[in-house]
């Protein structure tokens, strides 16, 4: 079944650790996104990609990096996690075209202690 998957769902790590949040979609979508969302707040775009080998920074400044080597895979990496990175991270994908919807993963709730 076509879907978008994020792992892990929950992650608690220590300051200074390197982490990678995984996002994969089986929908064949070219466009993928990473959002950061604090509880009860709006979504902030931190990275997006239009396709393989395309990555762009979003509106919210982030110390994370992303890669897009394969269409279906869009991992997000933090080289050195800090408590300020504690948040929920949502991955999404969509097709091109007017009216197309964004499909979201379940999210990864990251806590840096």
């Amino acid at each position, binding site marked *: 079944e076509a879907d978008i998957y994020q792992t892990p769902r929950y992650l608690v790590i220590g300051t200074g650790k390197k982490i990678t949040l995984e996002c994969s979609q089986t929908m064949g979508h070219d466009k993928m996104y990473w959002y950061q969302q604090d509880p*009860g*707040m*709006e979504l*902030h775009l931190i990275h997006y990609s239009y396709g393989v080998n395309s990555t762009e920074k979003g509106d919210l400044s982030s110390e994370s990096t992303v890669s897009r080597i394969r269409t279906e895979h869009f991992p997000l990496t933090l080289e050195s996690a800090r408590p300020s990175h504690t948040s929920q991270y949502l991955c999404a994908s*969509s097709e091109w075209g007017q*009216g197309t919807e*964004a499909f*979201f993963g*379940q999210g990864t709730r990251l806590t840096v202690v």
Partner: protein
Amino acid sequence: AQRVTQPEKLLSVFKGAPVELKCNYSYSGSPELFWYVQYSRQRLQLLLRHISRESIKGFTADLNKGETSFHLKKPFAQEEDSAMYYCALRLDSNYQLIWGAGTKLIIKP
């Protein structure tokens, strides 16, 4: 600059009462508006889009370009409508989505 405003963080109404969740946008281009919903412990999902002019789960929303609004309405609220609702604006320049802060809707029995 483009912006989406949802003035109510929390809206609480009784079952059977009408519901209106407000959304205003600021954008100089051609707006494309969406409402997304997140039920408890579920992922964020599309509720409706202005281009479709459809009614989903009894909800409707009309794009009013004069008032730059895209309010979400339902004539008779049901308990299962309790959720977080987000209004989003898609930019025609780069297809990015600009999000409102969300409104938590609580339907009281």
